[in-house]
C-alpha cells in the first residue's frame, strides 16, 4: 500500500463469531484492511462470504447475542471502535460513519415522515434545532436529487418509489457529513435503470463531498464501474485485494478468477450455459485451518487442505491468499 496518507479507517485482525444452537459459526476470520480518505473500496463475494457481517461488526450493528466480535481493532478518528464504549460508538454511527442498506422498501420507518427521519441524526449529532434541521433536511433531499424537496419532507416513506427511498436513505447517511459511507448492496433491490441512477448519484456525491466509501456488492459489473480498489471476500476472509484495473486484468486468486468467469457477457458468441462455481461457500464451525476455497478450487493441491494461505503480494497494492503462482502456473515456494 502506498504511504503518505493516513487511512481514515483501519481494521486489524477482526474476528466475528455467531453463537448458534448448532455451535459457533466463524463468520469473519482475521480481516484486516485500510480505507484511505476519498477512496471507494469495493467489497465482493458470494452471499455468506462475510462481506456485510464484516462491515456491521465495525460499528457494532450486529445483534449480540448471537453475534460476538471477538478480536481485532477498528481505528477510526483515533479511537478503537471495538473498545471505545457504547456512547462513543453511537456518536460515530450516523455522524462519522454513514450506512446505506440493501432494501430501501423496509429500511425506513413506515410511520414517521421522511423529514422526521432525516432530522433525527441532525438533531442528535449536530445539535441543530428542529427548524435548522428542517432546512438542512431539505438541502439534503435536494442534494440526492429529490425534486420539490421542502414539500416532500412531509411525506411518508410509502409515498416514495423504491429508487426515491434509496435516495432518502443516502440523504440520511450523508446528513452529518460522514468521513466514511458504508453501502451494503444499496442497488441490489432496485431495477437496473434505477440502479444506474443511484450509482451515478453516489459517484457524483463522492466527488462533491470527498468521503471514503465502502461499497458491498456481489455485482462485479457495478464494482468495475465505480471502485478504486476491490477486496474479494470468501469464508469470512479477504482472499484478494487489488486496484480495480489490476483485479480485472490479473486476478491472482482462483476464487476471483471463477467469479469473473461467472459474469455473463453480451458480446461475442452466445454462451450455451451460464458459468457457475460448483458447490456452496463453507459454513465455518471453527476458524479455518486450511484454505476455505480448497474444495471448490480447480488449482487445489495437497498443501491447500492442511494450511490456510496468508496474503501474498502479487503486485503493487495487490495481495492474494493463494499457494498457487499463476505467473509460473505452479505452486509457490515456501
Amino acid at each position, binding site marked *: 500500500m502506498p504511504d503518505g496518507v493516513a487511512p481514515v479507517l483501519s481494521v486489524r485482525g477482526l474476528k466475528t463469531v455467531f453463537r448458534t444452537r448448532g455451535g459457533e459459526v466463524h463468520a469473519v476470520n482475521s480481516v484486516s484492511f485500510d480505507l484511505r480518505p476519498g477512496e471507494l473500496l469495493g467489497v465482493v463475494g458470494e452471499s455468506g462470504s462475510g462481506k456485510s457481517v464484516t462491515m456491521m461488526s465495525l*460499528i457494532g*450493528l450486529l445483534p449480540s447475542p448471537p453475534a460476538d466480535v471477538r478480536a481485532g481493532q477498528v481505528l477510526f478518528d483515533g479511537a478503537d471502535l471495538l473498545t471505545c464504549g457504547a456512547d462513543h460508538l*453511537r*456518536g*460515530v*454511527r*450516523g*455522524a462519522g460513519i*454513514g*450506512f446505506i*442498506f440493501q*432494501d430501501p422498501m*423496509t*429500511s*425506513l*420507518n*413506515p*410511520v*414517521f415522515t421522511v423529514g422526521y427521519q432525516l432530522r*433525527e*441524526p441532525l438533531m*442528535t*449529532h449536530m445539535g441543530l434545532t428542529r427548524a435548522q434541521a428542517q432546512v438542512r433536511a431539505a438541502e439534503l433531499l435536494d442534494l440526492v436529487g429529490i425534486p420539490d424537496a421542502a414539500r416532500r419532507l412531509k411525506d*411518508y416513506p*410509502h409515498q416514495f418509489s423504491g429508487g426515491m427511498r434509496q435516495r432518502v*436513505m443516502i440523504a*440520511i*447517511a450523508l*446528513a452529518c457529513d460522514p468521513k466514511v459511507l458504508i453501502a451494503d448492496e444499496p442497488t441490489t433491490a432496485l431495477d437496473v435503470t434505477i440502479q444506474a441512477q443511484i450509482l451515478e448519484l453516489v459517484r457524483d456525491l463522492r466527488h462533491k463531498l470527498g468521503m471514503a466509501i465502502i461499497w458491498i456488492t456481489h455485482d462485479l459489473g457495478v464494482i468495475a464501474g465505480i471502485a478504486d480498489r476491490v477486496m474479494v471476500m470468501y469464508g469470512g476472509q479477504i482472499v484478494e485485494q487489488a486496484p480495480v484495473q489490476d483485479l480485472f486484468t490479473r486476478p491472482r486468486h482462483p476464487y476471483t478468477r471463477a467469479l469473473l468467469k461467472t459474469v455473463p457477457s453480451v458480446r461475442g458468441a452466445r454462451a450455451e450455459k451460464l458459468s457457475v462455481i460448483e458447490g456452496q461457500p463453507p459454513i465455518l464451525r471453527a476458524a479455518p485451518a486450511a484454505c476455505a476455497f480448497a474444495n471448490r478450487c480447480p488449482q487445489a493441491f495437497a498443501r491447500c487442505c492442511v494450511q490456510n494461505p496468508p496474503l501474498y503480494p502479487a503486485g503493487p497494492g495487490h495481495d492474494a491468499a493463494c499457494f498457487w503462482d499463476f505467473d509460473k502456473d505452479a505452486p509457490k515456494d515456501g
Partner: protein
Amino acid sequence: MFTFTLRRLLIAVPTLLIISLVIFLLLEAAPGDPLGDVPLTVPPDVKEKMRAALGLDSPWYVRYVLWLKQFFWVEPLHLIDHLFGTSLGEGMQRVISFQSRQPVMQIIAERLPQTLMVVGLAYLIGVMIALPIGILSAYRQYSWFDNLGTFVSMVGFSVPTFFTGVVLIIVFAVKLQWFPSVYDTTLKVTDWASFKAQLRQMVMPVTVLALYNAAQISRFMRASMLDNLGQDYVRTARAKGLGERVVVLVHVLRNSMIPVVTVIALGVPTIFGGAIITEQVFKVNGLGQQLISSIHANDLPMVMTLTFIFAILIVLFNLIADLLYGILDPRIRYD
C-alpha cells in the same frame, strides 16, 4: 376519514337492527316463562291476565316493533327530558323490567357506576401494567424477566377469574381478613375513612380482573414488539446513532402500538358487559350481575335491552378501532 366514518355509521344501522331482531328471536326461542315463578295456586285465568298485563299475549312481531319504538324513540325522549327538564316523553310507555317494574334504563343507570368503577378501573390498570411488561419482555426476549412474564401471563390467562377470585377471597378475606369479601355498593365516599373502605373493597375484584386483562394485552404487546424489533428500519435507526431508548420507545413502539391499540379498543365494550363472573364472585352489583339475575328471572325487556346495548358498544368500538388504526398508521387511508 369523515366520509368513511359516516359510511360506517350508516352501515351500522341495518347491522344493529338485524342484531336486535336476532337477540329478540333468540330470547323468544329460549325456554322459560316470565311467569314461571308465580305459585301454582294462582288460577290459570288470573295468570292469563298477568300475562296480558306484561304484554305477552300479543304476537312476537308486535312486541318486537313495540320494543324498537320504546328503545329508539321513547327512551331517547326520556333522556332529553331528564337532561333538559322538558316533558317530551311524558305518558309514553318506557321499557319496563318484568322483575322490578322499574324502567330498564333507570336500573342500568344505577348499576353502571359500580361496573365502571371496578371493571373499568381493572381494565385501565391492566393496560397500564401490560404495556411496559410487553415492551420489556420483547426487548429482553428469553431473559428471566421474559420467562417470568410468559409464565405469569399464561397462568393469568388460563386460570379463570372465578377461580382466582375465590382463591383471593379465601386467602385475603377469610384467612388474613385484610379485605372484605363482599362489595358494598351502598358505601358512599364522604370522608377519608369511607374512601379507604372503598379502596379496600375494590382491591380484590380489580386485582383479579386487571391480572386477567394484563395477561392478554401484554402478550399482544410482546408479540407486536418482537415483530418490529427485527425490522430493517430498526437497524437504520441504530445506524443513525440514535440511543437505544429512542430506538425502542419511539421507532419500535410507535409501530408496535398499531395492532395493540386496536385490541385495547375492542376490549372496551367488555367493560360495560361487566366481568359477569367476577361481579358474581365479589357480589359487585354491576351490569354483569344484573344481566345474570335477569336471565334467571326471564326478565325479557331487561335482557334484551342490556344485550342490545352491548351490541351497540361492540359495533361502536369496532369503528373506533378502525379509525385509530388509520390515525396511527399513515399507510392506511380510508377515503
